[in-house]
């Protein structure tokens, strides 16, 4: 690690992100250069073949740790594996969850980390405050989801299900993720609320492209999320 710099762990699930992963990592490296000591925990969620990472990317102050699920489990499961890895080794000053598909900006990710370095426990990105090009239908669903999230978690936030978040260590330790699929975003907020952690929101820019819209979370996926949450409520371990 680089002496004197604050340390940041980036938790990055990745599935079949062959084209986007390299540029995403490179942008993080450039954004952090000389300002933060960054370690990215990439969890390849069963891509076939396994995702390859350019060995020229790491440098002093920018490390990459790769783990691979033997089978595809879902983004929530990959995030939980990254969380386990990030909490197991060296202590970091801030922890950020970030997508690998290029939707999230490296500058935004590190800005959220900086809010944690300033004393915040939980920082959620707000895509509606940062000039994102959110498709109309997606925006409508996300607006409606705010109401559901409020009912489910008690947190009324500007943006439901934004994958760009930052945590202090004490916060991250208190939010194990049980949901393997996309319902993990609601689960994280439920755990944050239950733990009584203070939440702040920060504007971020989420960039949608044809590629990310084709591969990413579908608007119709909201039904699957509701089903997963219902099953967790019915069959999950109470209090977890």
């Amino acid at each position, binding site marked *: 690690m680089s002496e004197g710099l604050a340390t940041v762990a980036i938790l990055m699930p990745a599935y079949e992100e062959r084209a986007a992963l390299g540029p995403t990592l490179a942008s993080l490296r450039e954004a952090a250069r000389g300002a933060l000591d960054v370690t990215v925990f990439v969890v390849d969620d069963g891509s076939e073949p396994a995702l390859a990472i350019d*060995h*020229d990317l790491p440098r002093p102050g920018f490390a990459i740790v790769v*783990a691979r699920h033997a*089978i595809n489990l879902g983004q929530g*499961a990959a995030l*939980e594996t990254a969380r*386990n890895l990030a909490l197991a080794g*060296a202590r970091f000053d801030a922890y950020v969850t970030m997508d690998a598909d290029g939707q999230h900006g490296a500058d935004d990710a590190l800005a959220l980390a900086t809010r944690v370095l300033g004393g915040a426990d939980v920082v959620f990105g707000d895509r509606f405050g940062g000039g994102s090009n959110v498709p109309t239908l997606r925006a409508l669903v996300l607006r409606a989801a705010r109401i559901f999230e409020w009912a489910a978690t008690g947190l009324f936030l500007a943006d439901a299900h934004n994958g760009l978040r930052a945590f202090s260590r004490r916060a991250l330790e208190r939010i194990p993720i049980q949901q393997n699929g996309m319902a993990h975003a609601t689960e994280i907020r439920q755990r944050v609320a239950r733990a009584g952690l203070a939440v702040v929101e920060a504007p971020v820019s989420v960039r949608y492209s044809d590629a990310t819209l084709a591969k990413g979370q579908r608007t119709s996926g909201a039904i699957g999320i509701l089903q997963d949450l219902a099953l967790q409520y019915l069959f999950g371990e109470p209090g977890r």
Partner: protein
Amino acid sequence: MTIAAALLLGLVFGLLVHDWVTVRGKNRRVLWVETTVFVIGAFFIAFPERATGLAHMVGIQRGVDFLLYPIVIWLVRETLLTRRRHLEDRERMTQLTRALAVLEARAVVPRGVDAGAADAARGG
């Protein structure tokens, strides 16, 4: 016998033949259970008045209700138990997959750099 009863009996018989023919060289005990249940079902299809008689004995109006109530209760219970078992299996699979991933996690090291030294440098 009505056309519907004949068709249902044909379906039951066809399914039984299919299952006995296709499940070869395996444990066939479950087929005997299936056959027993199907024969009882076929009896009530062929002689619905017998089901109605049994229903009246226990205070139910129609024979079909006499059969339907316990079947629906059993199906709902079986669905819930199956769903729970599925989630438990998925949880085990997730934990196993995660344990392997964590065990085999490695730092990406620049070409020409010793991997052990890189791990030590990041505190791993």
